[in-house]
């Protein structure tokens, strides 16, 4: 396997890993599977298009604004929609996220049409290829994705382990009733989890749009990243990272050695295999299956 192939795997794994953080955050904290995650990621990318259009001379500002917008977006989704289902059956919440995804897809086309946008180009940036080793090159945006994914993971780890809000989020995820009893405001925790989730999703969307543009089918990547989260056990960040590596390796290998058309279905083949062998993932626990 050539070094270039390895580089491609690492880039794809980084994308899946970054997107997966969103699934893991929400599931770990509130046991809800957010199937609108792909669409939310896509809206994050469109947010960059909007800010890039407004501040084309100031890319940093545009990026920061879009990222902030991504954070706020999740909290708004929780406050307006998801909070009514807190305490209800998880399946109802998941169905609502499916409906939300459809709504967002329609809205994004109504607002931005089906045209393809290149926010990078709006800044006058043309995504040069970067040579990271002899005979190995990736685009600058891809390099950024890998770096940012590492930073995000480190940041999330520190946040969950060492900050008050992070510990509270972990507590709420383990035992929401007890958490409420011990003074933890569940609504606040859940809203913040959603905000963090859409924040990382928007980062992923923005970076992807800088790499290859954004248009209305970008949301599929969100769904393809889901198996990575599942492999890890849905509530483990480390598991999601490992899962992303596994899925990315399988996908690139399949494209390279078997059939390029397999690219969209390989993640789900991995998903099916995991569900068949060890449904609770690498780091989950058996009891989780019954809690559903």
């Amino acid at each position, binding site marked *: 396997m050539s070094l270039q192939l390895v580089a491609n795997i690492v880039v794809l794994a980084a994308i899946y890993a970054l997107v997966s953080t969103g699934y893991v955050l929400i599931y770990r904290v509130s046991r809800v*599977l957010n199937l609108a995650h792909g669409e939310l990621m896509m809206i994050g990318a469109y947010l960059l298009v909007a800010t890039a259009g407004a501040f084309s001379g100031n890319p940093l500002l545009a990026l920061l604004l879009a990222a902030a917008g991504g954070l706020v977006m999740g909290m708004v989704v929780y406050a307006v*929609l998801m909070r*009514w*289902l807190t305490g209800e059956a*998880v*399946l*109802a919440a*998941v*169905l*609502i996220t*499916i*409906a*939300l*995804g*459809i*709504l*967002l*897809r*329609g*809205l994004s*086309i*109504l607002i931005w*049409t089906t045209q393809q946008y290149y926010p990078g180009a709006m800044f006058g940036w043309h995504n040069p290829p970067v040579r990271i080793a002899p005979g190995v090159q990736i685009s600058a945006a891809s390099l950024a994705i890998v770096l940012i994914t590492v930073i995000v993971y480190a940041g999330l780890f520190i946040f969950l382990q060492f900050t008050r809000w992070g510990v509270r989020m972990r507590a709420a995820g383990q035992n929401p009733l007890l958490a409420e009893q011990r003074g933890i405001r569940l609504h606040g925790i859940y809203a913040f989890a959603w905000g963090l989730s859409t924040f990382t999703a928007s980062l992923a969307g923005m970076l992807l749009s800088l790499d290859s543009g954004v248009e209305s089918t970008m949301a599929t990547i969100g769904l393809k990243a889901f*198996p990575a989260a*599942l492999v890890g056990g849905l509530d483990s960040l480390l598991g999601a990272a490992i899962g992303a590596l596994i899925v990315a390796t399988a996908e690139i290998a399949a494209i390279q050695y078997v059939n390029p*058309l*397999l690219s*969209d*279905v390989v993640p*789900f*083949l991995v*998903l*099916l295999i995991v*569900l*068949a062998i060890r*449904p609770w993932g690498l780091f989950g626990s058996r009891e989780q*299956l*019954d809690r*559903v």
Partner: protein
Amino acid sequence: MSEQASYKQELALFGTRARQRRLAAALAISAVLPFIFSPFLLDLANQVLLASIGALALMLLTGFAGLISLGTAGLLGAGAYTVGVLVREAGAPFWITLPAAAVVGAGLGLIFGLPSLRLRGLYLAISTLGLHFVVVYLGGEYEAREVLSTGVMIDSPSLGRFTLTSGRAWYFVLLAFAAFALLVSVNLQRSRTGRAWRALRERDVVAGALGINVQRFKLLAFMISATMTTIAGALFAYFRNFVSIDAFSLYLTVQYVAMIIIGGMGSIPGALLGAAFVILFPYAIEAIAGYLPARFSNMVFALDYAAFGVVMILFLLLEPAGLMGIWQRVRNTIAAWRAPKRARRAPQ
């Protein structure tokens, strides 16, 4: 004016006079409709009939047996593709392709059903989602290999000199299939299988302890539901004279899930109501779109998505029991309004 129905009459499907009267009325109305509907309305009616088969199939699986499945589009596609492939490769007539679709359905039902032996709820739904993508991939593979960028063309089914093309003829055919699906559903609901499924839906661990063969009934649910769905898919292929894997997207699955939610989970009339609602919805949106500024009216499909998402959310938040729930509340309100009058009329 109520009659005392004997137990035997209650048990039979159309035993009581009241039910027979209602059946006669329903048959009369449905027989007359195709002659008073315009071609457009007739096509709508046909679409609704076709959709009800899939909706009933999903209702059996999810509403009755409590087994979550997101594989409807995959199964519809499999049924349609069975017809497509057999017609294209072997020129097979419908009396071979339809049973073939049924067999494919039973087989896929078995495969889709296997995860349900180990997984529940969310995880089961995810596994059916995975299978959906596999089916869609296989269809896409076929189209790519055969270089069918626009899908498979299929001739209308014919028997002797008669070819099934007119809207009216299709109406009666689809009505027959839908009625049969309805009969199967109603009978299953009242049968031992239906009771076993209800037990499964409540608590499958307890059901197992009570001696119900959980595995057998879960697989049975998937296989029956899948067979109905693939047949619906096959009918769809003939109805549109055309099969393309693009039509069988996740959105299609969500539409069917919406049918049983909007109609009312676990209720047979609910499935029919839901099917009608979801099929007619885009046309209503299109009509409204005409009043919107041109920018929006040019993207009706996006408007459709957005509106559909909103409606689904509203039902999930406000009326999880669906249209049947609303209907029930209306009936209760009317009954409560009438009751005092009856009490006054009752003898001391």
